[in-house]
Each structure stands twice: as C-alpha cells, then as structure tokens.
C-alpha cells in the first residue's frame, strides 16, 4: 500500500489551469518534501489531496483509499497565517481540538483526551504555555501548537504546509526531530517546503512540482541540479562546493 497515489490530477480556476495531469506514487514511511517555485500550485496540490476542491479531475488515494475525514487518518497542519490568532483561547485548548474527531459529536472531551492533548503539547516543548492566550505566542510557538494539535489527533499520515516558514532555529529543530520520530514509527509525512538548503538533510523523498509533477522519488535521485533547473526554470542560481551540491535560490 502506498501512502499517496495521485493519478491524472488536474485543477482549474476560471480560465486558468493551475495543476495539469499530476501523477505521483509515494510509498509509506517516508518524510517527503514537496517543492517548487512560488505559484507553482503546491498549495492547490495539498488542497486537492485533502478533497477541498470540487473542481478537480483525477484520482487521489491516501493509504489506498479515497480521503475520508471521519477516519481521522490524515493529520493536517496548515499555514500559520491561515487563521486569526486573535481568537480568545489558550494553547492547550487548540491542541485539544485535535481530539474532537475522536471525542465525537455532542460529547465533551474526556480525561483521556485532555491527557493526550497535554502530552502532545509537551512533546513540542510548549507545556509551560498551556494557559497562554494564543494571541501572545510567537510565530515559532504558534507553529508548534499547530503541530501538537495534529499529533494529538494521532494520525497515520501528516500533511504540513510550509511549517518552517518564519520560525526560529530552535523551533525548526524541534519540528524536524518530531517529524523524523514519526517516520521512525512508520508514519508518512508530506511537507510543502520552501527552503532548498535543507531538503537533502531533512527529507528522504522529494516531489518536484511546477504546474505538474516533474519528478518524484528518493531525494538523492531527484534532487539534482538538472531536475531543479527544470522545475525552477531559470529562477535558480546554483553553487557547488566540495561537500556536495549546495543550491541557493
């Protein structure tokens, strides 16, 4: 069974085709980077996978099945700026929301739910901020809370949208360590990633996306100067040093 199977996925808004004939198969247990230039359709790709786009054509299967939210198998970590952080609540409450799927409609979160939420908050190093208003959190702290929420959900496959954008180095380390430990547990992780410098270090699988999927596979095979040149189409300036190919955008 593959973590993700995409067949002939196309998405159009008005007269523009944003994604055209995307095809990719990713096996389970990988930490996969989705990279491509701005406006390449990465966010659209993610939304299409999460079945949020009614105007898509093609097939998407997650862990062998069509996406079913109720199965709680998919843990989604959106971009930080997708929400209004002025919302009157604290960090623990946000993480607890990750348990709502398990709690069920009409019921209150159980003691077990609250415990799991606390543990998730601890695992991202935010236990002291449990009672803190989310409006007072820094960017990195907000990102950790979002990750904790998905962890509390206890999913099998995770999709993160630019989790490292604008976060401090300590937060970045915390996040990538958690993602790697999730992979060690056999879970599959997909990250829309913007920083080409860290792709080789963090990810073992890579998808190159620019209006379609140009290449996918093990990072060492796919993350090459030629492939990158084709993906970024001349917007890339590359340097090679003695250690390996270092890419600067």
């Amino acid at each position, binding site marked *: 069974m593959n973590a993700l199977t995409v067949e002939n996925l196309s998405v159009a808004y*008005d007269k523009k085709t944003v994604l055209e004939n995307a095809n990719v198969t990713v096996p389970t247990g990988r930490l996969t980077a989705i990279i491509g230039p701005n406006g390449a359709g990465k966010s659209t790709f993610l939304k299409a996978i*999460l079945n*949020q786009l009614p105007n898509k054509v093609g097939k998407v299967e997650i862990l062998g099945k069509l996406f*079913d*939210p*109720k199965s*709680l198998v*998919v843990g*989604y970590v*959106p971009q930080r700026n*997708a*929400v*209004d952080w002025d*919302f*009157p*609540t*604290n960090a623990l*409450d*946000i993480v607890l*929301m*990750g348990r*709502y*799927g398990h*709690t069920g*409609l*009409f019921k*209150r*979160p159980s003691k077990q739910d609250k415990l799991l939420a606390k543990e998730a908050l601890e695992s991202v190093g935010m236990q002291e901020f449990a009672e803190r*208003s989310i409006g007072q959190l820094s960017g990195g702290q907000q990102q950790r809370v979002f990750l904790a*929420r998905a962890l509390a*959900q206890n999913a099998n496959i995770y999709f993160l949208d630019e989790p490292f954008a604008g976060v401090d180095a300590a937060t970045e380390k915390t996040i990538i360590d958690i993602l790697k430990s999730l992979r060690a547990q056999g879970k599959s992780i997909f990250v829309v990633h913007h920083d080409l410098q860290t792709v080789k270090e963090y990810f073992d699988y890579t998808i190159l996306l620019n209006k379609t999927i140009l290449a996918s596979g093990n990072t060492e095979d796919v993350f090459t100067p030629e492939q990158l040149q084709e993906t970024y189409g001349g917007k890339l300036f590359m340097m090679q040093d003695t250690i390996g190919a270092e890419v600067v955008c």
Partner: protein
Amino acid sequence: MIELWVIITGLLVGITCGMAGVFLILRKMSMIADAISHTVLFGIVMAFIITQTLNGFWMLVGAAVAGILTAYLVQLLHSSGIQHDAAIGVVFTSLFAAGVLLITLFASHVHLDVEHILMGEIAFVPWDKWTLLSITMPKAVWILLLVLLINIAFLLLFFKEMKLATFDAVYAASIGVPILFLHYAFMTSISFTTVAAFDSVGAILVVAMLIGPAATANLISRSIKQMFLLSMLYGGASAIIGYYLAKFWDTSIAGMMATAVGILFIVTLFAQKLVDFKRKSLVGKLEGL
C-alpha cells in the same frame, strides 16, 4: 407591572442577542446579521402575500426563511468569486427593494408599518399576551424565551465543533466536522434571534445588540466562555441603561438602547487601553529597578 414587562423584554433581547453575537463576531459575520435584519422585511411581506393574514406566527416563519435565504444567496455569490462584502450588499439591498415594492403592489392597503419594523415598539409589548400552561406573559417574552432556549441548545450541542470550525475551518473539515451544516444552522439561529427581537425593538436595535455587546466582550475576554458571559452581561446592561435613559429624556427606547451599546463599547475600549497602558508602564518601572 407594565414597566417590568418592558424591562424584562429588553433584558431578554440583550441576553439572547449577546449570546448569539459571540460566534457572529468570531466568524466575522457581523454584516450578515445586518443584512438579515433588512431582508426579514421581504420575508414578512411574502408571508402576508401567501397567507393573506397578518398572523404573527407566519410572519415569523417568513422572516426565518428570508434569513436562511439571505445566508444561502450570499454564500452562493461569494463562492462564485464575488468578494464577501459586495455579495452581502447585493443580496440584502435587492431583497429589501423587492420587499418594499411588494408592499406597494400587494399590501399598500395594509398597515405594515415600516417604522415599527425598523424600531419596534417595546412599549406595546405588555399588551399582547399569550397564555400557555396557565402562565400569562407577553407574546414577545414567550418568543424570546423560546429563542433563548434554542440558542442555548445549539450551543450545548455544537459548542466545540463551532469553536473549531470558527478558528480553523480547513482543519475542522479535515477531521470530519460538518462545517457547511454548522454554518447554515448558525445562520438559522441568527434568523430566529433577529425575528424574535425585532418585534419588540426593531431591526436596527437587533443588529446593535447582536454586534455591540459581543464586540465589546471580545476586547477583554481571554476565553470564549468569558466572552459569552460578558457579552450577555453587556447586552442586558445596554437594555437597562437604554431604557432608563429613554424614560428620563422621553425619547425612543430602541434608539437609546442602541446608543447605550455604543457608550458601553467606547467606555470599555478606553478602560482596556488605560489598564494596558498602566500595566505596561508598571512593568517598565519594575524592570528599571
């Protein structure tokens, strides 16, 4: 006794609208409430045209339907690319104009008092009584109590889902929260609230009560539960203050209640800023030690 009923009605309006307004503010849907308060006119006129009676019950139904229709049309236009505020503007002005036209065409002989619809007549509330289960209370009070119960029930059932759907709709959808259903259910409860209140205080005050107390509470709340409590408190307070000021100056009760909403907002805003400022300067002083 008469006066007591007027005050109770005002309190109920303040509390019910204060409660309903919290998620309205958090979902950034204040203007849809304004839109609904105008389109209820269309609903009422349609109810009259269809049933050929001035029966209060059918008017409520008509108004509620108009409210849901408004929410639906706005959603429809918005999802086809029209920006949200413009979608609201198009829908409610068109429906209101249609309502007015229908009045002149089919109901000009009937006393559908526009002023009453816009400003209500809370002073007349005690005279229109219903007796249910051998309790006699003004009709407006019965209806408001019913709507208050409906709102409470909605909250008890869907509180955590509404919270999540409001904060992060996309994540909510990804774990199976029925966000579209919640949106329309909530709009329905807003329609009911609008309809229940405007008979006594008119369309304009309903919107003031839906938006003002919740917005004021939002300035100083640290949790949603706090926001609910404060919002209901502000709503009730605006009603009481507004009533007594109107009595003192012999002027419109509904208008004065709306004014009170504004006054409480300004006072809270400045008080919060002052407290904030003092706290920051205190921290500054302590750090300087």
